[in-house]
């Protein structure tokens, strides 16, 4: 009993949202869960990445230039703390990694569901590990969509446009409507 999207009860009655119930590393969230759990939801692009020690833990600090605030209040930039990082400026270069941790690339356009992160002033962590980070691009219809499956998007790599696919995507206009509606109709078990 779990997870994923809304389960349609019958052909006439729509949308019972289940709390998705999984995970050994992360609990799988529905769109509704992500919206409800996030303190802020923003779109933007990554302008800077830097590995940094927080005590004895390596993290990667991502600076996001905010394009749109979909929920909550945020300035023109937000600081996102990603688990894990690299330190080569030491005698023995090392990496700290978390299986299935979210990663953001330089200049990547992203949709982020964020929750406050205590260790970094004004910092945020991503809700639900990698599930709260989606890449934004235009789909074949030219609509702005966000997806966890990069193959589903038209992405700009360093050498140009790459291919397209078909899997999980989230239409940004659809997401805006959901947020504005407050997702009040959903039920949980």
């Amino acid at each position, binding site marked *: *009993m779990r997870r994923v*999207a809304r389960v349609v009860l019958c052909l006439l009655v729509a949308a019972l949202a289940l709390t998705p119930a999984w995970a*050994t590393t992360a609990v799988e969230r529905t769109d509704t869960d992500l919206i409800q759990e996030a303190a802020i939801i923003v779109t933007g692009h990554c302008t800077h990445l830097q590995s940094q020690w927080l005590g004895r833990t390596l993290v990667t600090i991502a600076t996001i230039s905010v394009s749109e605030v979909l929920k909550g209040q945020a300035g023109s930039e937000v600081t996102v703390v990603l688990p894990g990082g690299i330190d080569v400026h030491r005698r023995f270069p090392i990496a700290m990694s*978390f299986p299935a941790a979210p990663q953001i690339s330089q200049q990547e356009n992203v949709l982020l569901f964020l929750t406050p992160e205590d260790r970094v002033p004004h910092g945020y962590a991503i809700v639900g590990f990698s599930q709260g980070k989606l890449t934004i691009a235009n789909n074949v219809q030219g609509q702005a969509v966000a997806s966890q499956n*990069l*193959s589903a998007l038209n992405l700009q790599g360093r050498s140009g446009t790459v291919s397209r696919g078909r899997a999980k995507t989230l239409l940004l206009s659809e997401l805006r409507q959901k947020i504005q509606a407050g997702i009040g109709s959903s039920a949980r078990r």
Partner: protein
Amino acid sequence: MRVKFTTTLLSTLLAALAAASPALAGGNLETLDITQRQPSPVPGEINAKVVPVFWDSRCIPVQFRVNNTQDPIPNPLGAPILSLAAATATLQKSFDTWNSIPTSFIDMRIVGTNNNPGFVGFDFRNEITFRTENSFDFIASTPNITLLEDAVFVDGDDIDGDGISDVSSAITTCKDVNGHIVFPAGFYKAGTLLDVDIQFNVKASNGYRLTVADTAVDTNIRSVDFQAVATHEIGHAHGLSHVLNNQKSGTDGTGATMFPFVDTGDPASELSQRTLDSDDIAWSSYFYPEGSAASGPAALQPGDVPFKAVYGLITGTVTHGALNQPLAGASVSARDLVTGSEFTSGYSGTTQVSFDPVTQNSFVVSPAHDILDGKYVLPVKLGVWKIGVEAVDGNPVASGSINTTTQVGDFWGQQNFNEGVWGGPLESAREVNAGFAFPVVSLPSLTTGNINLVTNNQVNLNNFGSRDQVGFTAVPPGFYFAVQIPASQISAVNPGGDLLIQAGAFDTFVFDASVAPTFGEAILTTGTVSGSTATLDLAHPLARQTRFVGQDDDFAPFYFPFPDLLGKLVRTKIARGDIQNLFLVLRLSTSPPPGVSALPSLIGLDGGVPNNDVPIYGLSFSSADGVTFNRSNTYNFRFSLIVAKP
């Protein structure tokens, strides 16, 4: 036909006897290797190879300590129910589950406690803790520290910078000294694990109740079986990655322990993850092969079984058929040819990225630079296998939940192909019978090589967008779901030319993870539409399969026999006006649904939302009696017709 079959098998065996060295790509977590510091195509940057993480044999047994600053263990749902002693005993069971694999020399032990009041980090303590930061909102995680460069540790090296030596020339194996692990001096390869911690989230704000008794497992989704979660995390703790296997077979919906998610609402699913699947056992054994050394932990001890006495290897490459590129991060699997049961799966490809030593950021450059090859390896027992390939496309697991190699392939748009099987000498990007699997024989200690997969270059006729929901739960047994594919859509694929009508693909789902989604039948047939209803010729289907087995949270293929003849027949009848539409049909089983929820198998739905990514096309129909099919104005059912140009 039989002669040809035998000849090919012999050639396969000859290849095996040649014992080609296996590619090192599989079910492993990864890190970067910058040892060579070769310049990348980007000025100022260097190439960083993506390599597996592993424990050096000198550090086996791997020694863990349990954080004792919380006893009893907090319960976010109420009063504590778990003492530290009971939690430790359960952890030991999970360690023993891995330690008892006779073909793997991995050995992980709890050697004591520590009293760290803070959180885990790089401190040369392998710590198991129930303390997590506030933003940690998942059940558990296993962070690791790895070496990024081949290195020689010398006596007195303080690797973590805490002022305490982490290396000694006086020892030959890793030693726990006052709670710190000290490494023996010597050479270590990039990818070596230096420190692994396991953390469980029991915070009141977003944590989980951990239960240990069989009878305590329930359907409360904020409560989870501790042993199941711990066993999974300990898989990570010795380097194993997540896998896509969430469904053993058509009759067993449970999957591998290293599948990333546990269904906390399904007791049967939770309990099943305590026990290792053949996939988990095979990869632990492959990375830590028993009997692979004359001395040390890899040497045979009483009760051990040599890896080579049980396992052979299947190796080959995967090529993206449409892009004509080596494919990084495809999931390759071996299924028992007779039973269909999945034995193991791994990921294809050897990759590298460009690394900026100044900013410490890594970048993809181009497919040609980043993807060095599409090699894969599968450890398998004696058997006859069907070798399949599947995209890591988010159903059921996204590339970001696996490893770097799957993400590189995803970034370059490679995770967008239909699943397929190895067709032997007929394997190509344009196969006639895409569902034909050529048997692959494996023998212990031998490598069956050159099982080179090419993903199919096909056209999916998808009259749907992204999945918004799954359904339907309140429909009667034997209910029908159908999707219309108009003749004009079929004719447009290759106007005037031949067409292979190869398969249907149905997006399927099941409510309880321990259950395999099954349907009464899958059908390809013809029909007509009048107004808002459709009439389907179910008495004369073009293809029919009874007891159709779906895939949990994924598209399941229904391969049609004789795709070339079917294509010719359909094209001819369309030209004559005898066929107006094809229909893909799934019918629910008439048997009571299994599982704790007792809900029928479900299909993927696009729609039911205010602003859908594609229009509701009006091509989806349903019927309770198979006579009158009513159009859905709310959803597009996610059924796909797969065709190809010859």
